[in-house]
């Protein structure tokens, strides 16, 4: 192979890149509104499914906090309030963004709060509120299968 052959090959490769880039830009400019809306459907579904349990735990905590006197006979109210405040603080700091950090923190926070809620329910002798918590969430939110066909829902 002489120097002229190498020169020709380099020219061809440059042209290939140039044509590829030209096509790439055209492809990117095609309307993508349909895909954006499809993504929104999955986002609504997944967001609702993931945060049902967060709302459920918030609801339990609020009830306990506003009915503290009901539990005077079974637990020190100060202890109960401390547990409730700790659980509430964890829930309040959960981010609703779909970023890597937020999703990782969500997992930790939900697990931590669930454990705390189990302790509180046990202290209050109200385990029945949380015994079926996962089934309960599945019943209302369905299984987390975001790749399912959503035609029936949307």
């Amino acid at each position, binding site marked *: 192979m002489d120097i002229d052959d190498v020169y020709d090959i380099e020219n061809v490769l440059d042209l290939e890149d140039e044509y590829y880039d*030209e096509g790439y830009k055209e492809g990117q400019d095609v309307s993508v509104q349909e895909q954006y809306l499809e*993504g929104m459907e*999955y986002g609504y579904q997944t967001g609702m499914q993931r945060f049902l349990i967060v*709302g459920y735990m918030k609801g339990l905590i609020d009830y306990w906090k*506003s009915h503290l006197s009901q539990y005077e006979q079974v637990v020190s109210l100060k202890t109960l309030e401390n547990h409730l405040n700790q659980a509430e603080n964890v829930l309040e700091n959960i981010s609703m963004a779909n970023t890597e950090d937020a999703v990782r923190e969500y997992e930790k926070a939900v697990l931590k709060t669930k454990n705390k809620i189990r302790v509180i329910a046990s202290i209050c002798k109200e385990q029945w509120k949380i015994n079926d918590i996962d089934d309960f969430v599945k019943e209302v939110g369905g299984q987390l299968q975001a790749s399912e066909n959503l035609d029936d829902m949307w």
Partner: protein
Amino acid sequence: MVWVNLGNRWSVSMSEHAPSVDDVWEENDSRELESSTADIRRIHKKQGYLDGLMRAKESSLQAGFDDSFPKGADLGIAAGYILAQLISHKDDNLLQQAKQELNISKVLSKKYFTSTLEIEGDEHPVIREWKDKVTGLK
């Protein structure tokens, strides 16, 4: 298309179903290609076009997902809160009714959303209705 969560954020992947050049461009490529500039241009522009299209679609799906995820989370929090209040108040009749009406398939029914998938009005009507009911229990 599949949504995946590999221990991090929810992301879309269309790569499994990405069409090849031959799927989209209906031409008979089995013939001998001439090493002409026109052929090189056609082949590489096609592949670039498809790659650009798939990339744009993926990023639009992801953008839509990211934008609505917090809105779905708000709905989930509200629905979960209502259910917890009902169970705490031991109102089994209302609880059973709420489980039906706050089911994800009902709350995310298209009738409550605009054509651009925003919730009609200030608040989701089913959520508002149930919030009022729960407030009445207190």
